[in-house]
């Protein structure tokens, strides 16, 4: 019997397609690659949450590898990751810096964040659940968050001593995420 090779073409294409579908089945279609990984951390000049006189900038962050955590007291998931972040701080000596993201601040609509109240809430919450943070950068107008491509809280960035972003994680950092995704990058980092 003679076979026509061209008749096998649909089968061939289908087999390749099945391969992709199988692979796609085990990956999350909602996962988006971060656009900031591999780029240097954006320049900023922002006050400290606890002491508005004090100003943080990229220069004060550089020189040491650091984990930056975007969070707010309004964010439920952030509360869940506080104990774990505290744990990696004490156990592995990870330097954790908070980027405080306030939800209500909207000057164009006449709504202003109540900083003293936030400070009280933050202190209470951290006393309760553990305090991993060295300090908090107050990103009231969300300019830094915008530059970082933050879509919600919590989000976590790993920055090396040269100020290059090495990882961007959306959602909470927990045992599994740290072990599988962030720790390998952290340990490689300078």
């Amino acid at each position, binding site marked *: *019997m*003679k*076979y*026509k090779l061209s*008749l*096998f073409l*649909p*089968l061939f294409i*289908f*087999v390749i*397609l*099945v391969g*992709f*579908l*199988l*692979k*796609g*089945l*085990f*990956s999350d*279609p*909602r*996962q*988006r*690659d971060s656009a900031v990984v591999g780029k240097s951390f954006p320049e900023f000049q922002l006050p400290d949450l606890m002491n508005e006189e004090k100003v943080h900038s990229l220069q004060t962050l550089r020189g040491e590898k650091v984990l930056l955590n975007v969070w707010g007291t309004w964010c439920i998931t952030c509360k869940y990751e506080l104990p774990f972040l505290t744990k990696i701080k004490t156990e592995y000596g990870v330097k954790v810096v908070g980027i405080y993201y306030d939800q209500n601040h909207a000057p164009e609509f006449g709504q202003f964040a109540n900083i003293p109240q936030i400070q009280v809430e933050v202190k209470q919450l951290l006393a309760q659940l553990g305090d991993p943070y060295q300090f908090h950068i107050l990103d009231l107008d969300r300019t830094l968050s915008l530059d970082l491509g933050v879509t919600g809280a919590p989000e976590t960035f790993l920055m090396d001593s040269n100020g290059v972003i090495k990882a961007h994680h959306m959602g909470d950092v927990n045992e599994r995420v740290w072990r599988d995704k962030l720790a390998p990058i952290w340990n490689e980092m300078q």
Partner: protein
Amino acid sequence: MIPELGNFALYIAFGFSLLLSILPFIGLRKSNMGLMQTAPNLAVGLFVFTLFAFLCLVFAFVTDDFTVLNVAQNSNSALPVQYKFAASFGSHEGSFLLWLLMQSGWACAVAVWSKSLPTTMRTRVLMVIGWICVGFYAYIITVSNPFDRTLPFFPVDGADLNPLLQDIGMIIHPPLLYMGYVGMSICFSFAIAALLSGDLDSTWAKWSRPWTAVAWGFLTLGITIGSWWAYSELGWGGWWFWDPVENASLMPWLVATALLHSLAVAEKRNAFKSWTVFLAIASFSLSLLGTFLVRSGVIVSVHAFATDPARGVFILVLLAIVIGGSLLLYSLKAGLIKSVGKFSIFSRESSLWLNNVFLVAATIIVLLGTLLPLVHKEIGLGTISIGEPFFNQMFTYLIVPFALLIGIAPHIRWKQDKPNKFVATPLIICLASVALSYLWLVVEFGEVKGLAWLSTSLFWWIILFTAVELVKTTQKVRLTKLPLSHFAMVLGHVGLAFVIAGVGLTSQYSTERDVKMFVGGSESFSGFDFKFVKLQDVKGPNYDGWAAQIDITQQGQEVSTLLAEKRFYPVQRNTMTEAAIDATFFRDIYISLGEQLPDKGWALRLHLKPYVRWFWFGGIVVAFAGALIVADKRYRQQKSSVRVRSSAAAEIV
């Protein structure tokens, strides 16, 4: 007790499908007439037990049996009874049972209405359907059982049906669409049976053509109604989204349309035979692929069911066996098929060949647009998104030559024709179409937009050509003597013309405005005056809400009074917008009620959508063409049963 009976019936049905796939096979092998004869009986049994299982599930839903997990998750005691019925196929498990009901129903129909077929062919077709069924029934009883219990701790009340699905569309759209999807398995089975037997003359095309036409008619209607439902329910006035799941239904439709045309060539002219077999395999394969895409969570879509990788793997394996197996069989056997019908380059055959090229090109575009993001990501190139602009642009390119072809092709003779006959008439019709549509747009809208002009010109081109064709034909044959399949062609083409004009006009001339209105206030928009008369409370069976009464007038003349609603469904804590629509054949006024603003005003969105109805009207006309093909005398005699015609026609209408 009743759910257990249903569960039991499903197991019995699975047993029937096993027997249906084995006994006829042995019968064919050993030329044992008795074993072959079991096939139709087994198919009927399969249907009876599946129907019983389905009714048990419906019973569980209607009687609020929250000890059944499926009921507890998708229904609620306050849900109106018609939506309790719809909820029985609103979940993944339930919808799959509906799928099986359709599948066994088709098998039963083949068993009942194919008595005139040679016994071996009939047995083979039913056996192939049995093979497909084994996979599906195994799936439902192992990983997707709709009768799973919540015992011993069952909830007092259910989690309710998603409010989006609480609409008349949910009751009719899924069954119609599934009839179409699953109906593709029949022409698929005919093709596989023909490949297995090696009898690939034109008879299999003749046999499978009416089945394909019915399935295609259902699919057309299902897609059309789905589009109308999205338009009236989602509240933003869109009628086609190029969502992966819509694409999944469009792909088998495009291929089935190509198949219908190429079946005609295979049957009448003995050409395109191997290609037709391929299309038959492809149309069902794409139906299955669509199911996989919706149910596996591989692709982000608005339609996605709750996803579970175990199910995804199961369906993918099923897909690989059914599609892979049939494509392998095709590649091994199709080489033996000889197409004897010869035709020259300018002939009806080549125009139908072009038709197939366009339809398959469109399918490939949709397939690429749907799957490329997945492939792109999996080979590590990052995430991309392919959206409306890509599809719209590609389809605009394709529809122009396609529509031009639709006009001319029915005038071209089989085998060979003279191109120089086709100069004067097309030229006149071309000029007439362009002029008529220009006039139309200027008079009605006051401005001529390019794409709208193009689409209306194509509309007139098809309409005028079809009219000329009908006049010419009736000079030779009396109108009453004309076969119904000829009218099917006319209706199919005219329906598509309406779709093209509707899409062009509504996409180019639709206007919308966001307004803030107070009770008692007025706004004017596109020549209509809208008065916000009052806001009333609405108390539904399972929701509360407000309705804004809007009186619409045009130059003092009363046009309509509409109630635009905002509903709150407490069980799922969902707020829904029920758009208010004043529809005529030539335009829709579409109002959706937004949020109440801090100053007590209400945000409203007003749409004016000219000719949007033409899209669905065209779709229904096209679907009706499917019914006419089945009603054609040739197939009726062959079936020696008038029941086929009446029941099929009734189902389609």
